[in-house]
């Protein structure tokens, strides 16, 4: 019995699947770009590192292994919608099982808005292949040509005689067939489910309390743990007094722990108890003396003044350069040189970070709201000196992630606490832990220089100075420019603007930073698209017209047409401010127009947001609209309501009373439109975010003449 066979059987057992079934999966032959589809039903195929993504049993029930996390972005809906289309089954007959972390799935991180765009072509082909195999079995049974048969609603029909087989009746024979190559896929015009605004399959369980999030996971004998971590993030524990804490009813044990934070560590003291509350009470009663030496106790004003100083003197590391922006700007009589600044931010998913771990002699099992099960396996395997395949990572629903739950610190904590206690442990972070401990989105300063001649933009020179998230990861080099320095910037600009450079001025602090929804585009977009507005003014051009002149490709032109049409850009009135921004993020382009005016008290109010998404091939327009709406709400908060600041090495915010989120009362009307085309699928979960802040501040400039170059700003104080 080979290892892969064992893990495959384990895998099906874990998923509660046994008995005869047709299993189709991908096999990525080395050197091949495209996945081969293999019938993995029999043991003959078990030597391959297979990922049994579709499983059809003799009752015709289809189980799909969702290899990515469901954190709100809708993979739980959109992946089945793709499969049901080509497999010709009803959506209600598809069960979705969350896959565990395993190499056979390839990269499993739910990030980069990649769930659909990285897998849809294979999913379509896989489902069509299963359908063709089932049709072929039916045709053989009836002794009729395959061309006389068709599939629909989980059945194969023989058209001339109206006979039919349920898929389940065909499964056993199908398991013996090789997977056919080169099946014909449907055309977009033939879709019955794809591109339809179908209701999400996971809604019912999210309206009656039955959806299981990480925090809801329990195991027999499980104890609860909370950790008092060094508030300066990098320090250690000098000593602690647990006398009072041990007297709290329910508290079982208190000890020092050293947890992984990317490639560094943090120290803390853990309180293990019989309920979350008892553990929290124990933590309150703890007295810990910290050692905070050996690293700088940074403050926010210092961060930005240093960045400003560095941007004055350093050219940084070039990421890309075309033409000669320095010379063009130096010779221009119409040059601009300004700085934009964006804040540190917390991800603050409403479900705080938590994790259940059960450390046993021969394996470690983990359940939690986890965006990257494969990364958890990698880091924990190295850290705990345990073979990767002995670490089983189960993904529950995520109560929001936004990048925070793609990391391994909290599974590591749970694992080492469970190892010490010898029982299953759930670690729960309080909201205060979440906000004060990070990791946070890095705060960045951008120096933007440019020139216009005869109404045309002739040069752009961008320098970014802020922490590079990649430097926190193991094995990353620091002598190259941050590859995300130009994220968000539209590629067609390279065609029309001859002189462009992007550079990173490297900047470090002891504060851990990490990907935050739409990552660097979330901040780059504000700098680059605000600057484009400033250049339009300098060039004496309407801001939308300037973009139209410079974004000459067909997709951009159509996007701009749509933006102009839905917003009534050309018909805008005197007392209205209109702002535009267009950004690229994870292979999708989103254009937004924001309309503002002044209320009776002279305060700015946002009257309307129009967003146009071009994500190419897509699955569910309603999910896309929901993602863009949500991205805009998140961007509104980050632009106008909240920021993380530091003083003496400590985060100054603690909970939602001082890290204020948008509420229902803050939300302007948002209309979302989707472009129809056949281009390759782009991302959906994040690209709606970056364009909002610059569209808003550009609109405020249009109304008031006041240019906002630093986020966040108080909408009421403009």
């Amino acid at each position: 019995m080979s290892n892969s066979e064992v893990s495959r059987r384990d895998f099906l057992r874990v998923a509660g699947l046994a008995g005869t079934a047709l299993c189709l999966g991908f096999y990525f032959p080395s050197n091949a770009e495209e996945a081969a589809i293999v019938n993995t039903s029999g043991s003959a195929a078990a030597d391959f590192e297979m990922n049994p993504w579709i499983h059809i049993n003799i009752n015709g029930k289809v189980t799909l292994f969702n290899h990515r996390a469901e954190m709100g972005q809708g993979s739980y809906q959109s992946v089945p919608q793709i499969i049901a289309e080509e497999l010709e089954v009803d959506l209600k007959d598809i069960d979705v099982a969350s896959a565990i972390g395993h190499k056979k799935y390839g990269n499993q991180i739910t990030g980069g808005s990649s769930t659909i765009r990285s897998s849809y072509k294979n999913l379509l082909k896989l489902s069509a292949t299963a359908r063709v195999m089932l049709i072929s079995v039916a045709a053989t049974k009836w002794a009729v040509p395959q061309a006389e048969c068709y599939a629909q609603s989980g059945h194969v029909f023989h058209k001339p005689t109206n006979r039919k087989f349920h898929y389940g009746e065909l499964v056993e024979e199908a398991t013996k067939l090789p997977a056919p190559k080169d099946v014909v896929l449907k055309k977009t015009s033939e879709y019955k489910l794809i591109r339809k605004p179908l209701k999400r399959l996971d809604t019912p369980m999210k309206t009656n309390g039955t959806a299981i999030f990480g925090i809801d996971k329990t195991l027999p004998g499980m104890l609860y743990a909370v950790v008092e971590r060094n508030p300066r993030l990098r320090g250690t524990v000098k000593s602690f007094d647990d006398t009072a804490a041990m007297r709290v009813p329910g508290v079982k044990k208190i000890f020092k722990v050293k947890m992984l934070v990317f490639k560094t560590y943090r120290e803390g003291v853990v309180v293990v108890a019989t309920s979350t509350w008892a553990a929290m009470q124990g933590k309150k009663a703890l007295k810990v003396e910290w050692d905070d030496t050996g690293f700088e106790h940074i403050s926010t004003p210092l961060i930005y003044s240093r960045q400003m100083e560095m941007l004055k003197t350093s050219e940084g590391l070039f990421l890309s350069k075309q033409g000669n922006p320095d010379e063009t700007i130096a010779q221009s009589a119409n040059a601009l040189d300004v700085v934009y600044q964006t804040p540190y931010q917390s991800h603050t998913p409403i479900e705080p970070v938590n994790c259940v771990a059960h450390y046993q002699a021969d394996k470690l099992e983990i359940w939690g709201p986890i965006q990257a099960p494969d990364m958890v396996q990698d880091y924990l395997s190295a850290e705990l000196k345990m073979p990767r395949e002995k670490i089983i990572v189960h993904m529950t629903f995520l109560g929001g992630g936004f990048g925070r739950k793609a990391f391994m610190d909290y599974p590591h904590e749970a694992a080492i606490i469970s190892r010490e206690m010898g029982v299953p442990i759930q670690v729960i972070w309080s909201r205060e832990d979440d906000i004060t401990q990070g990791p946070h989105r890095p705060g960045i300063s951008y120096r933007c220089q440019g020139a216009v001649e005869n109404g045309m933009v002739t040069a752009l020179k961008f320098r970014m100075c802020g922490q590079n998230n990649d430097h926190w990861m193991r094995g990353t080099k620091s002598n190259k420019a941050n590859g995300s320095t130009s994220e968000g910037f539209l590629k067609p600009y390279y065609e029309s603007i001859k002189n462009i450079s992007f550079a990173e001025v490297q900047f470090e602090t002891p504060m851990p930073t990490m990907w935050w929804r739409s990552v660097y585009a979330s901040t780059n977009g504000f700098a680059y698209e605000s600057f484009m507005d400033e250049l339009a003014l300098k060039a004496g051009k309407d801001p939308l017209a300037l973009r139209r002149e410079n974004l000459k490709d067909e997709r951009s032109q159509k996007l701009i047409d749509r933006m102009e049409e839905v917003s009534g850009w050309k018909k805008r009135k005197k007392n209205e401010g209109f702002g535009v921004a267009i950004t690229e993020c994870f292979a999708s382009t989103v254009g937004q127009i924001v309309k503002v005016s002044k209320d009776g008290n002279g305060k700015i109010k946002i009257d309307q947001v129009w967003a146009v998404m071009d994500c190419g091939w897509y699955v569910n327009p309603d999910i896309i609209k929901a993602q863009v709406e949500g991205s805009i709400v998140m961007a509104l908060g980050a632009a106008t309501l909240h920021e993380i600041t530091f003083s003496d090495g400590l985060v100054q915010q603690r909970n939602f009373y001082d890290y204020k989120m948008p509420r229902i009362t803050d939300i302007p009307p948002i209309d979302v439109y989707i472009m129809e085309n056949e281009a390759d699928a782009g991302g959906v979960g994040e690209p709606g975010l970056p364009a909002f802040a610059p569209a808003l501040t550009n609109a405020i400039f249009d109304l008031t003449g006041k240019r906002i170059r630093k986020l966040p700003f108080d909408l009421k104080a403009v």
Partner: protein
Amino acid sequence: MIKLNINQKAHEIDADPEMPLLWAIRDLVGLTGTKYGCGVAQCGACVVHLDGEAVRSCVTKLKRAQGKQITTIEGLSENNDHPLQLAWNEVSVPQCGYCHSGQIMSAAVLLKEKPNPTDEDIDNAMAGNLCRCGTYPRIRQAIHMAAEMQKKGGV
């Protein structure tokens, strides 16, 4: 021992009377639909009904809940068919879904007190419930839809 009546069922639990109801419901009774989000009555993820009133269970001590009728999201309807639950499904309101037990429980009290809520009523009743996924436009839409359903002889 503390006696709690949750969703028409009696529970006796051995806990500190100062313990917030939230943790008793989740960790001791095992009903996990009610969520922890902030612990300080800022986010509304933990809203339950106490004698028909919306309260934040993260700051409601057990001694206050004792002897009262407690309703959690699991007890809002028998078959997930409260007009709000139906409307939430119709509009596909939830994204991650974590905050929606609290959203629905807050909205249920609103609909009981104001069967035809205006946008302003919705703002007033729902401003205490945070949604990080930003589903607010759909929450508003679904509450209006549920009010319509209720009028047409729903639950």
